[in-house]
């Protein structure tokens, strides 16, 4: 299917990537041939085939529900672009 500027704007917004209108036009032009190339998958008959999410043939293991790496607040905050009183700080979300 054709991918237009409006569709790119919608995806970019879902992906939280800022994009100018000029970029939206350019990216639509870039993605369209990739998507039509991808669409050759429609030639494959997949009726009755279960989707494969993982090659690992096992149940995900459960672990005991206990804290084993706690008390590392300062380590976690060391890379924060901005912190305040032991928390990650972000622009105001609620007035």
């Amino acid at each position: 299917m054709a991918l237009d500027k409006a569709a790119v704007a919608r995806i970019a917004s879902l992906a939280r990537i800022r994009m100018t209108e000029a970029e939206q036009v350019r990216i639509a032009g870039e993605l369209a041939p990739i998507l039509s190339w991808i669409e050759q998958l429609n030639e494959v008959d997949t009726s009755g085939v279960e989707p494969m999410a993982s090659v690992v043939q096992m149940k995900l293991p459960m672990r005991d529900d206990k804290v084993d790496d706690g008390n590392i607040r300062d380590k976690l905050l060391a890379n924060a672009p901005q912190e305040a009183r032991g928390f990650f700080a972000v622009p105001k979300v609620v007035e």
Partner: protein
Amino acid sequence: MSALTELGLAEARDGLRAKTFSARELAEAHIAAVEAARPLNAFLCETPEKARAMAAESDARLARGAARPLEGLPLAIKDLFCTENVPTTAGSRILEGFTPPYESTVTAHLWRDGAVMLGKANLDEFAMGSANVTSAFGPVENPWRRRGDNRPLVPGGSSGGSAAAVAARAALGATGTDTGGSIRQPASFCGIVGLKPTYGRCSRWGTVAFASSLDQAGPMTRSVKDAAIMLQSMAGYDPKDSTSAAVPVPDFEAALSGDIRGLKIGIPREYRIDGMPQEIEAVWQRGIDWLKDAGAVPVEVSLKLTKYALPAYYIIAPAEASSNLARYDGVRFGLRVPGESLDEMYEGTRAEGFGAEVRRRILIGTYVLSAGYYDAYYLKAQRVRALIARDFDEAFKSCDVLLTPTAPSAAFAIGEKSDDPIAMYLNDVFTVGVSLAGLPAISVPAGLSGDGLPLGLQLIGRAFDEETVLRAGTAIERAADFTAEPSFIAGRA
């Protein structure tokens, strides 16, 4: 001193134990080689002081006869593995300045076994690329040049810095990661050995995630034996990675006999793709003849869905990437571009922090996962993936290992194919099906192209049968007797 950088991992290990040279001498030779290799841009971060401290510990252990398996062996680490207190960028501006407070399991295994860290190797941004040209910190140069042509070539990707460092003798070995071919294709382009283990063989914990159902770490070395030695340490069950396989790790070095008498070698007919260069076809035929001469039996097999592996991959990998890369939002680590609102901050950070190819893949991934397209694209690709895995299962009913070319061409010039994403994606045409099926595969240098560039052959095994891959790889390595050297060797005039 430069002779020390020409050794294989196995020879260096023997030399250290025989006290022919010290770990300090070996480390200094490599620290100098890493510096000399700077024109290649293979390293994003050099860690000479760490190397010296680790080598000192190695010398102390060697002196008291308590050497560990990789004692004193200098390695490069792809900058996708988190290394405690050493910056880790994934080749992206968005992680510039990030210093992990923890160590990835794979690198922790290497240090546990005594290896010495030389630095972090350049890569395609978030491992998304086949030429190492998407790195935010500049492309890597392949140490090889075409005969009579001085244009710099790509080392392949995404583990391009790792491949270039090993080929240029700036490290005895390096870690790589492979999602669709990112260990094997650069190994082929740089004339070295690259091994992608079975999915689940090496822990993914602490490795920056690209596509979680495909990513797998593996060794990049100058011989098959060296790959076996490194894999021995890298592999193993890790409760911190829920897809890590709780299976015993065999003795990989014991699998290197090269005795392949009676082994059935599958030759997938669909890998004879249209427009395949004659020299790729020729090196493949030579490989078949070598294995036959060594007593193996070639059998033709069919992997019917070969041509659909790449398009399926370019739905699944971007879908997983768009989800994995959601964490780069400017809140907890890495780049933050300030904004008036939280959304503005997210959008600005991700627009400035991610490069063009990464943004492209996030957008594709977001699109194929979005409402209305999920079934048509994402589930369809997962169904095709199931069929591709089934094809391999069928093929392995009539053979023990598959032999194919690693890549459809030799290394190309930096800048070539950069404006055509699909042409770039086609680099992985022979490697990506293996990734979708989660199988182990090795690339072994097999010969030179007409203009003097290395070409690799790929051997693919059954799940968790790296041993047969290594055994057949040894047979190819012996027959090929690949002794050609790149035009750039670190520290050589």
